[in-house]
């Protein structure tokens, strides 16, 4: 090759050809084609008795085909494929969103009826019909969840630290294996485990809030271990080595370098683990039971919790069926809000505690 010839700009097509001006569909064309598709879809669905869902399905399929064909004619094969795949991905996303939106909508619609001050300030003590609330269940859920966190977070976090920083060989493999097994334990089995354990120790017919916390811990510990382990693995080894090279012992390196570096991820992981267990019903059903009055002492007798509250409102309505159903929906709404709030908290933690780059 002589250096005098200009180096050609390579484009798809002829080597050495100049870059072609790109022919594009005008911006409004896809919109118009989809609108036409939907109109045609409406007509098609009218043939079999009009329905909105069918119109949307027909419209999406027809519109996509039209845009693909038009794009292929004007813009060429690569761009047409791009538009087709974009349409497919968007459709998949829309389908995935349908259950979520529908669920949130339904719960909001039915739960807002009793989302009032009485619901938050009254228990179900001596309530058989209208009125009443979930004061006792809200606090029961908060207390039992907090107790679960108090049990699970130290065990889970320390296990994760052992696995990442200290564990070697057979013991590490065994712990990893059993954590995997624990992740798959059905929640009712966790409940029965706690039930059996406390029955063995305290005799028959024991019902305590702490039993529920133990049962939930069985479910929460593996989640905490897994998420904390992943986060600790992300801490660069160079930081540990930098600390060792300053003559810092290993345990101090873990406490003062590794954990602070990972604190955002640890907080997020733990919060999401709490969110994972806060709505559990089955283990609480067999261990904590339910009462109508307020019991805030997890070491003495039955307690009410939101999921179990909702379950009993639904399955055992008294004479005023609608009042019980309304309370069940509101409890469900409250649980969703609780889980969402925990997710928001997790995001805030990861934003505010992340190491600052300062650039």
């Amino acid at each position, binding site marked *: 090759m002589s250096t005098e010839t200009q180096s050609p700009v390579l484009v798809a097509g002829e080597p050495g050809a100049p870059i072609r001006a790109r022919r594009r569909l005008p911006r409004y064309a896809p919109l118009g084609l989809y609108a036409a598709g939907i109109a045609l879809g409406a007509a098609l669905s009218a043939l079999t008795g009009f329905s909105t869902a069918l119109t949307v399905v027909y419209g999406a399929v027809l519109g996509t085909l039209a845009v693909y064909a038009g794009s292929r004619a004007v813009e060429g094969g690569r761009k047409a494929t791009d538009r087709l795949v974009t349409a497919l991905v968007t459709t998949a996303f829309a389908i995935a969103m349908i259950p979520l939106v529908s669920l949130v909508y339904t719960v909001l619609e039915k739960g807002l009826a009793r989302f009032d001050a009485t619901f938050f300030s009254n228990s179900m003590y001596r309530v058989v019909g209208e009125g009443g609330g979930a004061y006792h269940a809200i606090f029961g859920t908060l207390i039992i969840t907090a107790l679960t966190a108090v049990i699970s977070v130290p065990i889970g976090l320390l296990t994760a630290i052992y696995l990442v920083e200290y564990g070697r060989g057979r013991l590490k493999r065994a712990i990893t294996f059993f954590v995997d097994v624990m992740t798959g334990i059905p929640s009712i089995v966790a409940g029965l485990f706690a039930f059996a354990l406390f029955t063995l120790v305290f005799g028959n017919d024991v019902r305590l809030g702490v039993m529920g916390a133990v049962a939930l811990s069985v479910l929460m510990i593996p989640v905490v271990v897994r998420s904390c382990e992943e986060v600790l693995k992300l801490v660069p080894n160079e930081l540990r080595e930098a600390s060792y*090279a300053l003559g810092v012992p290993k345990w101090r390196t873990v406490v003062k370098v590794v954990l602070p570096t990972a604190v955002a991820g640890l907080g997020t992981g733990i919060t999401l683990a709490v969110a994972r267990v806060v709505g559990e019903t089955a283990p609480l059903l067999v261990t904590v039971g339910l009462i109508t009055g307020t019991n805030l002492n997890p070491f003495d007798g039955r307690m009410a919790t939101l999921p179990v509250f909702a379950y009993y409102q639904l399955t055992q309505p008294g004479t005023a069926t609608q009042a019980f159903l309304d309370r069940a929906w509101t409890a469900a709404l409250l649980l969703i809000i609780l889980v969402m709030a925990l997710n928001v908290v997790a995001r805030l933690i990861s934003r505010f505690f992340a190491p600052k*780059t300062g650039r």
Partner: protein
Amino acid sequence: MAKRIEVSDLNIYYGNFLAVEGVNVSIEPRSITALIGPSGCGKSTFLRSLNRMHEVIPGARVEGKVVMDGQDLYSPDADPVDVRRQIGMVFQRPNPFPTMSIYDNVVAGNRLNNRKMKKAESDELVERSLRGANLWNEVKDRLDRPGSSLSGGQQQRLCIARAIAVEPDVLLMDEPCSALDPISTLAIEDLMAELKDRYTIVIVTHNMQQAARVSESTGFFNLNGVGQPGRLIEFNPTEKIFSNPDQKATEDYISGRFG
């Protein structure tokens, strides 16, 4: 302060793999010793074995003796943590602690070891160390900013300041300039020249001009082939290594005839 290191019959292993074999060398105090050689020949491994950082890697172990001023670093009653307090290290990639400010990074060695210091005392230490690392003028107005807000060359000098803040006797540097531009490299080379009055410095480098510029003695590591252990081929004053080396292999490597 600066101390002599005597290494005798040192074999370094990763598990069952012998990575470096039979090193005998004496590293002089108050001087810069450079280690050169092709990639994978065990320079860094040897360097890490001098302050017992090698054994941090699972399965890694060492046979032989490393004696610093009469004290065997690998004797059963030598505490690796104490060894590392006396022999500091600067790594290839700058690694300031991301959760700490510039100030906290410098005093990290003391803080992490829970040594209590008065505010004035630690202020003084920070200024002394940062001046020692040629960084003070650039960062004195923003000591509370995160260490990761600095440029790569500044971060590396921050790491040097952090290493000298604990006042070690020996400073090990594992390719400290390989990620830096020529200006930052020059700053660090100047710094090494100043530091050698007080410390014993050992530096691993791929840059032979750098070895020739800064060091008094140079060691050449080589290996016969893949899977073979690396060996210290020649250890001599830098002038001799670069003008009239004893070994043919050294001459070939330095003049670019290798492989």
